[in-house]
């Protein structure tokens, strides 16, 4: 047992098997051996095994992408498989191996030749060079890394063959086996967001700080994390058993039984009851839910309802829009899971960045600034909006329908709210004419744009609530694409400009009967709970895993002190000052 020191980022512990993530892994080939010393039979077998492993990884990636994103995006993996099993490439590689070239060198030679053929050309031909490089690297990883680490791996989950594990590890962070402790030089925000919190037992990185965006995302996924361990981390081999202690800021190699047991016990125990601050201000801690499978985890972790029910899952990966009945069933299922609580359903929020084939969304140069959210619902997709509202108004009249609330995404204008409310009223009138039982639920708007923050007072006057989507709000306030790691420094909710937009929103709602919530990554970071309570949020909604942590943290907060902290933070002029006020370190920022 030895212990490495770093900076605790997510205050939680986990035990698992180490796995290095090296997106830029060194695939340098060893020196070419004397052809006479090469065993062609063995090398041919290794080549075939590597192809099998890569093919399996490509098919996994294809299926997962088809499921999560779409068939078109998944097609690239079929092209990769085409290159992997290209008969002309296989013939040449096998011929080279028979002449005494090791498999890795033969693969590198042949693919480099093919890359050279496409490189420097334009458009689609250049993309082929990228495809070929990708397939080459997967094969080399299977041939080099797989072989090199065969002895070092004795982790608890070594059921998977190493060759295949190595072939798939770099691009497939979303499919790590359960009980993985991910080690990396650094993780980008998009790397981190791809992780499955149920599979990843912990994260430890060489670089990074507590407030790096990746660390914030890890916290909002409740993945135990220790960052900034330094070069010592490199001494850990893939497969070693590690304990990541995010509270103490340590990584323990080969922890003894006592340490392990303690780590497992400190898991997120649900806080069932609703919570209030130490001085008695209630804080509603709800869960974001993106599909029926997420309902049970949300109730198990003690969420006080659903603060964001994404309806997009009902629309993607299918040939036609869901029927009114399907939508009604999905919403009543959510209401039944939380019979005494509020369930906030967001109306359809798609746009050019989220392709749904049958919606014929326009191909726009900048989808984030284009036809999306309420713009589509009040425009070309008015029919879908009408059907969705019918389902929602009917659900509002069911046994647990009192808790239903409906909110509109990407609002930027008062007229949009007025038109949306008028549409709700006209749907209600239609249902009344038909003699169908229905009720009008609470109505609200998402605050995801600077426009909505500036207009918060006018919006709140016309609605029952506002809910701030911080990921989009930060993106639009800071003019920084949230999926672009190159501007990740800009895309951070702790910039004063974003905090002032939050403050403006909560202050505007404060003078009305409306309530105000937040549903974004920021809401799930217990390190920010005091700030958010101080800003005046009545409700915080987050990924279910962090509900227990945020509930515990909210109980410790003193609302009066939190208000003064929030005022100090809002008065700051730089992010560094904000971090200082919040007592967060600035390393890796």
């Amino acid at each position, binding site marked *: 047992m030895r212990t490495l020191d770093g900076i605790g980022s997510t205050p939680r512990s986990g035990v698992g098997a180490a796995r290095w993530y090296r997106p830029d892994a060194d695939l340098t080939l060893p020196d070419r051996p004397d052809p006479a010393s090469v065993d062609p039979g063995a090398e041919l077998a290794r080549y075939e095994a590597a192809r099998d492993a890569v093919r399996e990884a490509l098919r996994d990636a294809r299926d997962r992408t088809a499921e*999560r*994103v*779409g068939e*078109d*995006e998944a*097609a*690239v993996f*079929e*092209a990769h*498989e*085409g*290159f992997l099993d*290209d*008969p*002309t*490439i296989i013939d040449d590689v096998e011929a080279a191996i028979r002449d005494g070239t090791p498999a890795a060198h033969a693969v590198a030679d042949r693919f480099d030749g*093919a890359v050279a*053929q*496409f490189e420097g*050309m334009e458009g*689609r*031909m250049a*993309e*082929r060079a990228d495809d*070929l490089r990708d397939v080459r690297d997967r094969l080399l990883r299977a041939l080099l890394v797989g072989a090199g680490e065969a002895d070092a791996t004795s982790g608890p989950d070594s059921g998977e063959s190493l060759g295949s594990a190595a072939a798939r590890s770099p691009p497939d962070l979303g499919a790590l086996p359960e009980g993985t402790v991910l080690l990396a030089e650094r993780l980008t925000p*998009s790397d981190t*967001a791809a992780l499955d919190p149920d599979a990843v037992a912990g994260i430890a990185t060489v670089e990074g700080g507590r407030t790096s965006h990746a660390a914030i995302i890890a916290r909002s996924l409740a993945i135990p994390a220790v960052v900034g361990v330094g070069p010592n981390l490199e001494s850990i081999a893939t497969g070693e058993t590690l304990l990541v202690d995010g509270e103490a800021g340590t990584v323990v190699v080969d922890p003894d039984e006592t340490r392990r047991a303690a780590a497992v016990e400190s898991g997120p125990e649900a806080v069932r009851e609703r919570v209030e601050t130490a001085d008695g201000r209630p804080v509603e801690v709800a869960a*974001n839910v*993106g599909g029926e499978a997420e309902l049970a985890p949300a109730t198990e972790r003690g969420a006080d309802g659903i603060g*964001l029910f*994404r309806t*997009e899952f009902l629309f993607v990966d299918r040939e036609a829009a869901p029927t009114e009945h399907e939508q009604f069933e999905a919403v009543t299922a959510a209401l039944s899971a939380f019979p005494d609580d509020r369930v906030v359903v*967001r109306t359809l*929020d798609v746009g*050019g*960045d*989220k*392709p749904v*084939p049958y919606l014929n*969304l*326009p*191909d*726009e140069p900048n*989808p984030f600034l284009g036809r999306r959210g309420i713009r589509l619902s009040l425009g070309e997709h008015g029919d879908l909006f009408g059907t969705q509202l019918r389902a929602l108004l009917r659900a509002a009249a069911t046994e647990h329908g009192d808790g239903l609330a409906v909110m509109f*995404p990407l609002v930027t204008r008062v007229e949009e709210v007025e038109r949306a409310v008028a549409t709700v009223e006209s749907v209600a009138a239609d249902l009344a004419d038909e003699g169908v039982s229905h009720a009008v639920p609470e109505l609200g708007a*998402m605050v*995801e744009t600077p426009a909505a923050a500036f207009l918060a007072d006018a919006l709140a006057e016309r609605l029952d609530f506002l*809910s701030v*989507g*911080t*990921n*989009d709000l930060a993106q639009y306030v800071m003019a920084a694409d*949230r*999926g672009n790691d190159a501007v990740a420094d800009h895309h951070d909710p702790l910039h004063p400009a974003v905090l002032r937009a939050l403050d403006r929103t909560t202050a505007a709602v404060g003078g009305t009967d409306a309530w105000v919530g937040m*549903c*974004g*990554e920021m809401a799930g970071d217990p390190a920010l709970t005091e700030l958010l309570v101080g800003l005046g949020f009545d409700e915080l909604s987050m990924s279910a895993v962090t509900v227990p942590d945020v509930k515990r943290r909210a109980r410790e907060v003193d609302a009066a002190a939190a208000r003064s902290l929030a005022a100090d933070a809002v008065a700051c002029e730089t992010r560094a000052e904000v971090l200082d006020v919040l007592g967060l370190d600035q390393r890796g920022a």
Partner: protein
Amino acid sequence: MERTVTVEPEAGLHARPASKLVQTANRFDAEVSIGRDDDGLVRADSMLSVSGLNVEHGESVRVVAEGPDAEAALDAVCELLTSPVEESPDGAGDDTEDAP
């Protein structure tokens, strides 16, 4: 036997249509080759060779098939080349789950 057809898929013989062509050529007991009218032919079961042709939408290509299943292979390949494949508009790639 051989046939000359005009390539209909918007993407030409790239990306998805190319992999579909390769998969199709592989399915039959036949040697299928493809190329522009005047150029040399390449193996249709090779992604590398097919991509290397750089055939765009609207170009005409010659398809030659030999072997027991030559006719069926030719039919299947030409069917593919002359169907305007449903390549939906490029969805800007990223579909990060929409946390708001």
